């Protein structure tokens, strides 16, 4: 009889890594990683804009006014002679911060409301859904303008305003997922083992609802960035000297006939960022869906 091989003890981390690998292991394709690469660059710019060796984004050098790309500076200069590349890098900060905070606010508030509504049903659910339908039926731009006029134009205030707009969407996603999770036998099994309602919500329902919420979050972030730039285009986002992508497009529209790049470059940057977010979000979502159906 051969000596019994002692099974290798795997650590918690190794097991977790293996589970992750089974979910993410199958190839995503180069497009996905390209999109991730772009998002990493944007995130890096947003975090370290102040320490990067860049020209001052607020410093007007009249001599460089409307310089084209690759003439003296990398991407040229805008109508006031400010360095476009530097402004792009600093502008990413606004987009990323607002994207993250607005989505987080929407996710937490909307997600919590949606889970509670989906679990307890009854009058609360009906009332909440009615209110959310009203909010959804309201023209979002008008609502947003009203909110911004009311709570101000700081980075944080704008994040809250946009985040508020996302609550209905998130509540709906969370409620729909909760409704399907609550039907599963493991929720009943947990209840049969004496789990309290809070425990069921936090341990059984939440982890299963969070994945689709997070995947939806990336797609939502792309939309938030567009909403923010729409505000900036109307001059209602973060106040003037602070560079934002939407603001740069807005300023560039005056020079469209003579210097297209001033508006085009931030447009392309934003386009790429939103595209990447959608792409990554969509891939992750479909991957999670596959996982669900495999179980």
């Amino acid at each position, binding site marked *: 009889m051969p000596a019994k091989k002692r099974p290798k003890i795997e650590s918690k981390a190794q*097991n977790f890594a293996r589970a992750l690998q089974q979910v993410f292991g199958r190839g995503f394709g180069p497009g996905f990683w390209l999109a991730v690469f772009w998002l990493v660059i944007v995130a890096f710019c947003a975090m370290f804009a102040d320490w990067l060796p860049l020209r001052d984004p607020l410093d007007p050098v009249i001599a460089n006014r409307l310089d084209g790309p690759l003439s003296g500076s990398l991407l040229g200069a805008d109508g006031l002679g400010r360095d476009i590349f530097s402004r792009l890098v600093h502008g990413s900060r606004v987009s990323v911060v607002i994207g993250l905070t607005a989505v987080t606010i929407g996710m937490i508030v909307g997600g919590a409301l949606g889970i509670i509504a989906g679990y307890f049903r009854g009058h609360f659910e009906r009332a909440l859904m009615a209110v959310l339908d009203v909010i959804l039926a309201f023209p979002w731009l008008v609502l947003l303008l009203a909110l911004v006029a009311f709570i101000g134009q700081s980075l944080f205030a704008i994040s809250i305003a946009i985040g508020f707009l996302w609550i209905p969407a998130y509540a709906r996603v969370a409620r729909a997922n909760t409704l399907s999770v609550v039907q599963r036998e493991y929720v009943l*099994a947990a209840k049969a*083992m004496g789990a309290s309602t809070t425990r069921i919500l936090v341990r059984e329902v939440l982890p299963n609802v969070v994945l689709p919420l997070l995947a939806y979050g990336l797609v939502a972030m792309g939309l938030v960035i567009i909403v923010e730039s729409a505000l900036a285009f109307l001059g209602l986002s973060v106040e003037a000297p602070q560079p934002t992508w939407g603001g740069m497009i807005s300023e560039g529209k005056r020079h469209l006939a003579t210097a297209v790049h001033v508006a085009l470059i931030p447009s392309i940057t934003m386009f790429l960022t939103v595209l990447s977010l959608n792409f990554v979000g969509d891939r992750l979502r479909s991957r999670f869906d596959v996982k669900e159906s495999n179980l």
Partner: protein
Amino acid sequence: MTPPEFKEQPLLLDVRNLTIRLNSAAGLVHAVEDVSFVLREGQTLGIVGESGSGKSVMARSLMNLLPRRSVAQRQGCVVLSGREISALSERELQKLRGAQVAMIFQDPMTALNPVLTICVQVSEPLQQHLGLSKQAARQRTIELLDAVGIPDAANRVDQYPHQLSGGMRQRVVIAIAMACDPALLIADEPTTALDVTVQKQILDLLSRQQTQRRMGMLLITHDLGVVASRADIIAVMYAGRLVELAPATTLFGAMRHPYTEALFNSIPRISDPGHTRLHAIPGRPPQLHNPSPGCAFAPRCQYAQQRCHRETPPVVVAESSIVSAKPTEHLHACFFPVAKSASGEAN
């Protein structure tokens, strides 16, 4: 461990005249009608019936697990170790569930949460009911997994359910149920979703755990063969009613209700010659909303007479249950009981 005494074990579960009606889109569903039975400590009660005969609803109602919205009426009483279940608050029920009464569900694929590790799921009730620390609970979890026959338990604890096979998952589900040494285990079709070889292993595991821990067990199944050798008492349910209840040996020796007989005859036997037609019960199980008067089985019963279509037969003690000396009575609900002794006993 003390050997179980078989004389007069204390009463574990006493269900009396339990009636449950559920709301549905099609109207009131008479899911459970006037069901009574008792279960003593260490006993196994097998509940047999077709799909939709109210087995699961009955099992879930024992611990008030049915969604409150869907229960339209609930009558009768369920007494567990001397405590009336419907009188307990939700808090008290939570303390009872898992600690006193545990449940095993049909499909191990869905009975485990896909995003939590085995360790978390098994140690949850340990931490809650026994107040163990996280570390102690983890240790206990490994012991439990070992006890239910999961090889290499120390490695398996941190795995996720999708990394285990169906049989392994059902073992984990059993480990969760055993975690707090419950007095009563309700196994709701524990082997239906598993293939036959694994079925036997799981059933053996259940009966082993049961004798070790002296649990009472409610084994719900639609397979007469499953309960045949494992249950002390067998209850046959049809259309929400208990149609026959007897100690297993008595039942197979002298079944009284035509439905039991029909069920028994529809088991394929290995001793049958080749190309034997499988006996099936003609017709379909009745709809449980607005039941017609009379015995629910009458339309499908080959012995049915006029009276069967008019009156609902009461549950009575079988007249000739003198064959067995066991104190437990042989009950049935039929006006014209068959007096057949099963000739070809299934193993």
